[in-house]
């Protein structure tokens, strides 16, 4: 199996692991018993690995309905005395935040590690919030690894620290660490306890005001203890010697270390891995004899502010450079170039930056597109046709959600007008239905529907919002790599599980106009949307067809290779297929003839329907 290498029992073995794979290995070396998540890039592979190996490793693992539920499941695991881990992307912690905050108050018995995967540069996210501040709001110890090896080793420490303090530990990673591959040396695998036991102690676990007041005082005391631990931790170490100091953490450390070494900069580098509480004693010691210190960290000036506050309180006379005096940027991920430019600016150095410039040629962009065969394309195509015929296409407000179907923002579909977060398609649709007289249509995928749409749909029913809600049900969590969700008959361990029926759920909350259609059947899909548009009040259309990538993989295995092509004698070059259906397998030759690229066509055949090609010119390629 693809991920079995993380189960290799041989200590000392070296493997080329992704940061996310290394996290799982570290947890298995720490005696993990329970793990939960909701998939989100850049953390997704942690879940993929556990989905593949948890059962063999004797770990309970689940894909929870959403991050808040995942957080609560893992907190209960830790309260029962077993080592538990919960992980999600940075914005997932927003969803989990309510539970997360209280977990610091009630504390843990078994170790609890909460992994946040931040996404500087927003490779696959709607923002680049810096989740290190969550450690401050919640009063929680925090660690930040810089490489896969460190991620693996630090996870073990995180569990130890969590149990010593009786607090969860926030484990903050970023895309360049989650998706960095490096050499990882294995330690011993340790089998976790299969089950825990919950010892009742309401004064400890139930933060009603009278209990919570005491909890807050205890938490603040624990944080003093945590600061001492951080100050003496080997995770906060000094490298090199010089009159200039550099304080750095996470991925930024990698660039600093390489630049300092390669250019022979005489600098003393404090590499922080245990970053909350800010290890003041350690930093105080580090600053001795230095006249200048530069803070190099991605995103917000978290360490820089701590350092400046500390210098002010303690009257330390030192020049501090970083983002707050304009030498380093506060946005996007760092690179060796960003670090060199920043050091040049802060220290008056002259490090060379950049490669050679090649003659400028305008090259085409290559944005991600809905795949050939994607059922969402068929859904968008059918809806566009219906709304144009009703002359309400431009007037309709399309609220969208987080998933592949967000690509509906692209031409020619252009059905993504408003997006906030997971589930906002439904909540914002309620708002637009009340705030305007425009038609409103919301889009969410099946996994997103379970994640956060149901409360908003209940809201729509109760408050009589007039809207159409579309569930693009492709039978998987596609964008993050095809993880299961509550609508599928399989769970996180790979066992058979009860599959919830989306239609029954929406009918159960009181929505009466509900239709389920196969979007591959354009005619039927159009008919369903015509009925939905004509319906007064809330209506739900579930367009159900499995993700094309899953179908493709199955066909490849079975040796089925269906292809379509354009019959040039029948094609009138109306270009409806290229311009309105817009499957990426279509292309025009230099004379204007339309063809289908056989390497891209996945044989779905949707384009051969008269609703796409009215001239019947698109035909299946006959096998010779």
């Amino acid at each position, binding site marked *: 199996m693809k991920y079995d290498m993380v189960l290799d029992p041989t200590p000392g073995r070296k493997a080329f692991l992704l940061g996310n794979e290394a996290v799982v290995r570290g947890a298995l070396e720490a005696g993990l018993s329970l793990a939960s998540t909701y998939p989100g890039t850049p953390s997704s592979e942690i879940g993929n690995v556990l989905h593949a190996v948890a059962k063999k490793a004797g770990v309970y693992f689940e894909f929870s309905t959403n991050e808040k539920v995942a957080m609560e499941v893992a907190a209960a695991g830790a309260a029962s005395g077993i080592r538990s881990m919960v992980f999600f992307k940075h914005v997932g912690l927003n969803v989990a935040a309510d539970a997360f905050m209280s977990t610091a108050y009630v504390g843990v018995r078994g170790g609890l590690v909460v992994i946040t995967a931040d996404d500087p540069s927003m490779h696959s996210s709607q923002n680049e919030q810096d989740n290190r501040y969550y450690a401050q709001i919640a009063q929680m110890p925090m660690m930040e690894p810089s490489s896969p090896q460190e991620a693996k080793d630090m996870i073990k420490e995180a569990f130890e620290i969590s149990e010593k303090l009786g607090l969860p530990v926030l484990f903050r990673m970023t895309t360049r660490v989650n998706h960095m591959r490096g050499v990882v040396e294995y330690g011993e695998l340790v089998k976790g306890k299969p089950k825990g036991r919950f010892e009742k102690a309401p004064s400890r676990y139930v933060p009603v005001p009278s209990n919570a007041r005491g909890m807050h005082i205890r938490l603040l005391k624990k944080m003093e203890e945590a600061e001492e631990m951080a100050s003496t931790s080997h995770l906060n170490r000094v490298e090199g010697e010089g009159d200039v100091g550099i304080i750095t953490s996470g991925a930024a450390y990698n660039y600093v270390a390489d630049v300092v070494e390669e250019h022979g900069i005489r600098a003393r580098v404090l590499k922080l891995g245990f970053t909350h509480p800010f290890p003041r004693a350690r930093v105080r010691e580090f600053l001795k004899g230095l006249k200048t210190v530069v803070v190099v960290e991605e995103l917000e000036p978290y360490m820089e502010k701590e350092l400046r506050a500390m210098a002010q309180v303690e009257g330390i006379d030192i020049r501090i450079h970083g983002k707050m005096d304009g030498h380093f940027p506060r946005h996007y991920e760092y690179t060796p170039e960003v670090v060199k430019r920043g050091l040049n600016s802060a220290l008056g150095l002259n490090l060379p930056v950049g490669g050679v410039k090649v003659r400028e040629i*305008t090259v085409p962009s290559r944005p991600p597109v809905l795949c050939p065969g994607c059922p969402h394309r068929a859904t968008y195509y059918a809806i566009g046709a219906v709304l144009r015929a009703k002359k309400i296409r431009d007037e309709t407000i399309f609220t969208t959600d987080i998933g592949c179907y967000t690509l509906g923002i692209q031409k020619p579909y252009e059905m993504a007008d408003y997006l906030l977060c997971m589930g906002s398609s439904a909540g914002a649709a309620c708002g637009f239905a009340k705030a305007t007289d425009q038609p409103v249509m919301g889009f969410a995928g099946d996994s997103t529907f379970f994640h956060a749409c149901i409360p908003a749909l209940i809201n729509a029913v109760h408050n009589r919002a007039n809207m159409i809600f579309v569930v693009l049900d492709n039978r998987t969590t596609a964008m993050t790599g095809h993880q299961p969700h509550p609508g599928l008959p399989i769970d996180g361990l790979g066992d058979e599980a009860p599959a919830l029926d989306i239609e029954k759920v929406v009918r159960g909350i009181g929505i009466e106009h509900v239709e389920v259609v196969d979007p591959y059947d354009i005619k039927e899909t159009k008919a369903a949307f015509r009925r939905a548009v004509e319906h007064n009040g809330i209506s739900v259309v579930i367009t159900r067809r499995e993700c094309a990538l899953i179908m493709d993989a199955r066909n490849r295995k079975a040796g089925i290779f269906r292809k379509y092509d354009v019959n040039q004698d029948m094609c009138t070059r109306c270009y409806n297929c290229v311009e309105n259906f817009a499957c990426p397998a279509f292309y025009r030759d230099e004379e204007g003839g339309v063809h289908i690229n056989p390497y891209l066509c996945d044989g779905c055949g949707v384009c051969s329907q008269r609703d796409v090609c009215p001239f019947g010119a698109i035909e299946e390629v006959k096998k010779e």
Partner: protein
Amino acid sequence: MRPYGIVYAGVGGQGVLTASSIVGEAAIRRGLNVVMSEIHGMAQRGGSVVAEMRIGNARSSIVPEGEADVILGFEPVEAYRVAHKGGENTTVIMSTDPIIPFTVSVGKETYPPVEELVGALQEKFRVVTLSAVGLARKAGNLLTANVVMVGALTALPGFPLDREEMMEAVKVRVPPRFVEVNLKAFELGYEEVSRCL
């Protein structure tokens, strides 16, 4: 030793990450340090894919601009797109088979002539071109074009791993029933570049 930098650039579905993982596997087997960056973004099918790798004493998995020893371009435009990673001693190995982006097929953008891209790169770098798809077809399976590129990379003077080590890594990293055809693809890529140099 200065780390050896490789930038792999192609299109989703071309097997760019599999190719880079073969090189990583070989480096580990030799006992060399290796770090690599992969970016798994939104629905990547049809989107640009870049992997950056450094073999040797490096912590940063991003190849600094100017420090790529090799740009391994699985597609002409994608090779050009990462040219800023190149410096004075960079070799570009480029497969000349274009993959036309959808933005071009619908007539919104244009794909420049491949010779023009090669010409611009040649002004600054040593450039070796080959048809990975053609060689993969010759090997017997179009899906081995990525391993053709790995073979081509291995033939470069200065590449820190030798041919046998790389072939062992191919065997480990591809499914058992495709080992033979991939080794053939590797050989074809290797020979093609050896001949050009």
